[in-house]
């Protein structure tokens, strides 16, 4: 029988595949707790931080901006209830990314996540995505201080 740690890793890998890579937003209801909390630091794009809608709007926003958005795992590291995921995200900016109209540019960026799971559900996450690199690759606000 798989350990809790192995089950938690499987949940995270499946979540990345279903939501970020396939845009299956309903899947969030299956694996994310209702009282989910998002602690991600740079949240200029995803407005809500509490509840499943936090992850829902994050995935939706990225997939609307980048129809081929895809996370490729580099490493997954888990210890009991904590799972961390290191991946490279790629995509073509062919849609409106939150307020940014499409530029047609391709981006390739590192993203890191830490998840806390309870009873097989994701209750918390911390996301560190290379938003500065994203702005520079899109050619937006890349100078000192931005804007």
């Amino acid at each position, binding site marked *: 029988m798989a350990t809790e740690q192995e089950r938690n890793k499987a949940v995270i890998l499946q979540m990345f595949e279903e939501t970020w890579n396939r845009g299956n937003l309903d899947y969030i209801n299956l694996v994310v707790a209702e009282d989910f909390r998002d602690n991600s630091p740079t949240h200029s794009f995803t407005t809500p931080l509490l509840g499943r809608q936090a992850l829902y709007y994050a995935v939706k926003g990225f997939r609307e901006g980048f129809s081929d958005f895809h996370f490729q795992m580099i*490493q997954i590291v888990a210890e009991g209830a*904590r799972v961390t995921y290191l991946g490279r995200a790629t995509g073509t900016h062919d849609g409106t990314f939150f307020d940014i109209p499409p530029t047609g540019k391709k981006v390739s960026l590192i993203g*890191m996540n830490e998840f806390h799971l309870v009873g097989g559900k994701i209750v918390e996450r911390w996301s*560190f995505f290379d938003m500065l690199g994203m702005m520079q690759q899109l050619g937006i606000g890349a100078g000192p201080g*931005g804007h």
Partner: protein
Amino acid sequence: MAESYNKQVYRRFVEEVINKGNISIIPELYHPDYVDHSAPPGAPHGGTVFEQVAAVPKMFRGAFPDVHFTIEQMVEEGDWVATRVTGRAQHLGRPFMGMNPTGRKVTWGSMGFFRMKDGKIIEHYGQPDLLGLRTQLAAKPEPGSLDENRAVVTRYVYEVNMQNFDAFDEFVDPNFVDHDPIPNQKPGIPGLKDAYRMFTTAFPDVWFTFEDLIAEGDMVIGRGVIEGTHTGNFMGMVPPTGKKLHWTGTRMFRVKNGKVTEGWINLDFLGLLQQMGVIPQT
């Protein structure tokens, strides 16, 4: 449960190398075949592996002399340790990401993935919240706020370091009062420039770094260190020794309407004269 060896290696990196600038222990923590997949912007290339590792904390501590990382989480599995930290610092030193120092207090998060081999770090990916950091550094302080007063004093010290005395009119009040003048110092801005030129004559590369800066009311007070190479005559008294000297100083300023109006300074002249060999070291 005692912390694992690999987690202790990372903890030593944060607590000794990042928080104290103790770069001499880097060879104990990093593998000679180390590969960094995420060198931050401005990090130099070339040199030995250990020099490249040292360049990152050197750059951070140069810009943020009081930088302090708190380890929030370490997750370990197999050869890997994934970490999450919170960095806290004041931008008191060198420019960072193209922005001049403002004294701004900043807080940012960061994650890292470290692969270990033979008890040492051999591979690293890092993702600091650089956008959040840059946004905080670039934020304009409220007029009349403590943040603005800190920014005025930080700019004053930075422009002195750059020996850009022509900019003084922008942040020094014309009626500036120097409470600790050099002998026969003229009043106001002209006297202030003379006092600094006395130092830059003796130490052409002189650089003052605040390590603490505290603002309250219209006062700003800081504790700092000064470095300079003694290649010129000091105050008409001490001929050049060619030595690289370090001394400490505490400075206080009054700030009104975005300009410094009064200044106090206390320097460790005893330590300075001892290093110059004028007074014997006991």
